[in-house]
């Protein structure tokens, strides 16, 4: 990959000598220009960020934002007929597929973390999720302290126990950790009284509750155990494409356009089942819109 890019860059610079009117392109933008196509990685069930509608078409808040970024790339490259391909990714394969060039931008619910920055690059955050807990209203759990000695479920890949310990500053609290295969399984463990609480990103909890049989039986309680920024993922150290994506997102946030998109996906009924998440902007999201940042979470 590196070698071929260097070779490409060399060819280009030679071509550039012959035709000095040509702007210098590198990295992903060069790849898009050469192939005449861009591939967007999307998720299949990250409601409402990036998921498949009834016709198996990827839609969502992140997809809308990415569409704007693609428009900006078209304008930048003067390629109005740029072909846009879509490729479904999972949390397991999204990073390798980004690195090997299968996808050019990933628009989903990917947390920008310092560990991941070793592998890939991130845009400014377009959402901030807070890790909290979903409980059954009749369980009597209102705060982290109520979890002592109880089983707490989280989905493979997060460590709720660590977050709880960090937030319990000094108090000893002992929870039994259990793990669901995916969010639906974890939620089922709370629903079937296997677990007292499900610790997860609040927006995902809101989605699970909204689409459960009896949404009124559940609530999201407790403080934020950690805030995590969601961002567009791209290849590492690829300044040109990052500049375009960041500029697009920042522009949407400054103009109020991003807020409109937020309302469309978080405060209104959304396909496929016309469920309304009723998820007003948190203080953290407002802050992220006011001062866009690409800082990763530790």
């Amino acid at each position, binding site marked *: *990959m590196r070698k071929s890019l260097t070779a490409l860059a060399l060819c280009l610079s030679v071509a550039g000598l012959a035709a000095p009117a040509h702007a210098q392109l590198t990295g992903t933008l060069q790849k898009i220009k050469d192939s005449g196509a861009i591939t967007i990685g999307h998720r299949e069930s990250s409601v409402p960020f990036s998921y498949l509608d009834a016709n198996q078409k990827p839609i969502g808040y992140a997809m809308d934002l990415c569409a704007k970024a693609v428009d900006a790339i078209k304008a930048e490259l003067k390629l109005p007929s740029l072909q846009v391909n879509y490729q479904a990714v999972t949390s*397991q394969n999204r990073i*390798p597929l980004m*690195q090997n060039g299968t996808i050019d931008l990933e628009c989903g619910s990917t947390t920008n973390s310092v560990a991941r920055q*070793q592998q890939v690059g991130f845009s400014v955050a377009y959402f901030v999720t807070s890790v909290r807990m979903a409980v059954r209203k009749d369980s009597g759990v209102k705060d982290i302290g109520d979890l002592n000695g109880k089983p707490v479920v989280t989905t*493979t*890949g997060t*460590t709720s126990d660590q977050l709880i310990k960090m937030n319990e500053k000094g108090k000893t609290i002992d929870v039994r950790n259990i793990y669901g295969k995916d969010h639906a399984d974890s939620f089922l463990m709370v629903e079937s009284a*296997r677990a007292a609480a499900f610790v997860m990103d609040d927006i995902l909890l809101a989605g699970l509750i909204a689409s459960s049989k009896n949404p009124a039986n559940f609530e999201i309680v407790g403080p934020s155990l950690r805030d995590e920024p969601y961002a567009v993922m791209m290849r590492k150290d690829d300044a040109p494409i990052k500049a375009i994506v960041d500029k697009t997102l920042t522009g949407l946030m400054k103009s109020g356009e991003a807020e409109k998109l937020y309302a469309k996906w978080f405060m209104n009924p959304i396909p496929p089942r016309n469920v309304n998440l009723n998820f007003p902007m948190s203080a953290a999201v407002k802050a992220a819109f006011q001062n866009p940042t690409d800082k990763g979470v530790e």
Partner: protein
Amino acid sequence: MNYHWDWMFFFQETDDGLKYYDWILSGLGWTTFVSLAALAVALILGSVLGVMRTTPNRGLVGLGDAYVDLFRNIPLIVQLFMWFFVVPELVPENIGIWMKQDLPYFVTAIVGLGLYTAARIAEQVKAGINSLSRGQRNAGLALGFTEWQTYRYVRLPMAYRIVLPALTSEAMNIFKNSAVTYAVGILELYFQYKQIIEKTSQVLEITIVVTLCYFTLAFVMNRILAFVEARTRVPGLIVGTKGSK
């Protein structure tokens, strides 16, 4: 591919104070424990069912056949979910609550994996017994053996030797199938694999290591049973000895 290789991350500390290789070792431990326990369940139950299906008793044969049909035709992960999510809701409420709150998860996993594999082993044991000539049983009965004694002293010792290669495959499969138990809350090797990917994004290194772990487990099992096969061989008794014919 501009992948950032880092083999040293296995020695980094995780947020629970252990190192990543500790997570892998702990996962290996659970995988081994669940697999071997399920294998014990499967061998005992599978042998009983296999014998039942070769007896002259119609009722026993029907029972064994029904079991095998049921447990062989449902995917393992669906069976595990049945035991884990559905069964506790079907039993009386206080038993259900006990199953959900107090019963260790590994029991559910071992039962699920064991009963699933038992159906496959039952099929092999039955095939082994049926491959013997009818005269074996008749000779035993003529000597004054009871029906059970013809199994115990004549038919089963030969049948097991015949089906040992097939049982070896099954014993190796159980290690591979045990990966599915992560779906019902067992913190085994595949679970730790997913956790470590999520935490570090060093996908290639961890995939290579976990692949080697599973290969090693299955291969060690294979060697142990090959050794058993060699030690229990009766010259001239069984066809299909290794390397000949």
